[in-house]
């Protein structure tokens, strides 16, 4: 079967890509081995402190003490595997990371106090999914449907007005977030400055949900403002191109209703593209909210990543990137699968890229 062979090749390539991406992360997050040197120095310092502080070592000559320190430090290095060169160790890091054996963080803990990277990350996953899921789905649905409506009224006043707003999307969501905080939190004082729920969190589920919604409103609006008009513009362009196809003209000539034309002749052939775009948007937004979460003090993955980098917490950094890489690669593979079924060129095995 050509499709299965094609998919296997694609899967191998994507896996290699993830490997390379994770290796680059491991390399940078360890500062090309410099992090090991810092760890070694720290161990040596601790050992030296312990040796000098030991009352039993009083009167022992300095050279002898130095030898003791070196010996003990050497032992610690071997225990932690720090005696091997970084290249060897980095391969070890890579394989454990890829097998999702994420290990323990160095500084950061989850709210329950656990240091397991898996727990820390999953705990932060829900807030991110809540915020981005709501916002992305909202932006997407509004953009597609408004674009469809506008493409039917091409050239009208509403159409031109909405399209004139397209340049607003050149600014990212967090940028509008700052204005929203300024307006609704600082000046009008009707919305919270940030956070996910009020503090202390309400005990009742209903009050909790309400507080959550209140805190969700501003960041979601920020993402919405940053993305919706640009989205409408590109979807409108897309639909306009499709609605000038010959078969649509023919349908129009036949006198079909415009709703029928829209559903049958415009939406149906463009559905794969819509799905693709939707999935890719969701995946890329996974990491795209770092600044927004920082601005709104939202306890999500983006902010976790930023804190981890600022604390040089290598396991968390690598863990986040690995999960992201797998998710993205998985999505791309799924899209390849969909396309392999839909797109006849792939079955024939010639021309065109994967997308």
């Amino acid at each position, binding site marked *: 079967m050509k499709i299965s062979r094609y998919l296997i090749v694609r899967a191998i390539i994507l896996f290699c890509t993830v490997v390379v991406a994770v290796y680059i992360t491991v390399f940078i997050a360890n500062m090309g081995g410099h992090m090991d040197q810092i760890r070694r120095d720290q161990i040596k310092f601790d050992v030296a402190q312990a040796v000098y502080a030991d009352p039993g070592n009083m009167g022992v000559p300095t050279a002898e003490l130095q030898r003791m320190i070196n010996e003990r430090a050497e032992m610690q290095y071997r225990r932690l595997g720090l005696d091997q060169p970084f290249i060897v160790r980095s391969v070890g890091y890579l394989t454990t990371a890829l097998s999702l054996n994420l290990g323990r963080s160095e500084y950061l803990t989850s709210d329950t106090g656990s240091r397991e990277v898996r727990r820390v990350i999953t705990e932060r996953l829900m807030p991110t999914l809540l915020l981005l899921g709501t916002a992305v789905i909202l932006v997407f649905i509004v953009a597609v449907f408004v674009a469809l409506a506008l493409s039917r009224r091409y050239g009208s006043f509403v159409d031109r007005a909405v399209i004139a707003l397209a340049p607003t999307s050149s600014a990212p969501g967090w940028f509008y977030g700052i204005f929203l905080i300024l307006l609704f939190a600082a000046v009008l004082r009707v919305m919270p400055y940030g956070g996910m729920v009020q503090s202390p969190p309400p005990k009742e589920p209903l009050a909790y949900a309400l507080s959550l919604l209140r805190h969700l409103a501003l960041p979601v609006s920020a993402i919405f403002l940053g993305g919706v008009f640009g989205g409408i513009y590109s979807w409108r*362009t897309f639909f306009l191109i499709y609605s000038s196809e010959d078969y649509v003209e023919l349908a129009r000539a036949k006198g079909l209703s415009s709703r029928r034309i829209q559903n049958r002749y415009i939406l149906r052939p463009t559905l794969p593209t819509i799905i693709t775009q939707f999935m890719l948007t969701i995946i890329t937004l996974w990491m795209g909210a770092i*600044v927004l979460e920082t601005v709104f003090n939202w306890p999500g993955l983006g902010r976790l990543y930023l804190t981890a980098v600022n604390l040089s917490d290598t396991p968390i950094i690598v863990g986040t990137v690995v999960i992201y890489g797998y998710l993205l690669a998985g999505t791309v593979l799924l899209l390849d699968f969909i396309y392999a079924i839909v797109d006849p060129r792939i079955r024939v095995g010639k021309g065109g890229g994967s997308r």
Partner: protein
Amino acid sequence: MRTVVRGLQELRRYPSAILGLLLVGLLVGVSLYAVIGMPYSEAIHLWRAGVGVWDEYPRNARPVWTDLFTRERLPRTIVVRSGEDGRVASEPTEDGTRSVEIVLPFDFQYDGFPREITLFVDTQMTEGEEVRYTVVWRTPGEQEMTLTRNRRVRRSDVYRISQDGTVRMALPGMPAPEVGLLADLEQRPGPEGRTVVKGSYEVLVRAEIPADAELTARLVVYGQIAGLAGTDHRRRDLMVALLWGAPLALAFGFLGAVGANVSTFVLAGIGTWYGGKTDSVFQRLTELFMVLPLLPVLIMVGHFFSRSLWLMLGLIIVMSVFSGAMKTYRAMFLQAREAPYIEAAQAYGAGNMRIVFRYLLPRIAPVLLPQFVLVIPTFVFLEATLAVIGLGDPVLPTWGKVMNDALGQGALYKGYYYWMVQPAVLLMVTGFGFALLGYSLDRVFNPRLRGV
């Protein structure tokens, strides 16, 4: 090329394109003004805010134009120097020294209280000697109050009157010395707070100094408003950053767009024409960089290696060359490759590079232009994004840095809105200008949009 020229002429028909061009032109003008009016080294020096650079500027002062929107006249900074407006009287004493009295008068006609009051005292005398001085405050009502007695100065001294605990104790019921010294002491504080006694104040500095020594004093009464753009927590005039942010943002955006977009375009052309191994290497690289998330990698590099703006720019370019746009361009080139005139070029024996650069690339160039303009604001905002999460260049005064400072200092909570809004508006103007232009170009040059 002719299509490009014709397209540009067609642009005149779009009002949004004209507006975009105006905004971009305005930015270029501001950039030129900044670069010519304030050389790079001076801007860096000012922005580093070393000792003494911003002495005479208040902290967190609002821009002067806010005065137009308030009922009261807000105080501006008053500087009185002993050599200029101050009067210096000196007479020799019996034991061979001089008794000096410096009078620093200032007229205070504002409705608000100053932010701070500071006295800078400098001496010129033999190394190692020291002088003691006394400071007296005289109100318009001729009331005198000794602020400090026998304060020691060697070379120079900064007497921060607003932070002097004894002055605060001597003015019971007053929130701060700078309020108490200028307020009506008889008045009971009403709901609007205290009122200022307007009139001419005097600060007297008295000291006995050696006969050959010199004593100079400078009084700074810090206002609530300063500069056209206000000041930040380190007393820096925000105008420096607002002006210099323009050339930096433009340079970053433009270089980023050239580096990432144009090279993607050229490489896509080369890859498609040569096909085979070159093409598949480019394809694999594109897939790799599509999985590698840009911002997280930048954050890592910024934290672990360097925060230099130009290193970041280089990295952004390297990572964006093989981006999703590669696939879009490739699809277009694949179509263009089959055009008959390229076959003709091959037939007359044109070399590969000649075909790519003379025939293949120019055909798609009209599509590149709007993309190029549209991608510039992305890079401008990317720089701001990096700065806002604390990875801005440590020395360069960019808009993003100002926003980062404002966020870090809680400007939105404390009501220093100007601090956040000014750079944000400039960023938005930049983004809007290029986006307006880009979308209009898209309408002119995108062949598929023309028919509809």
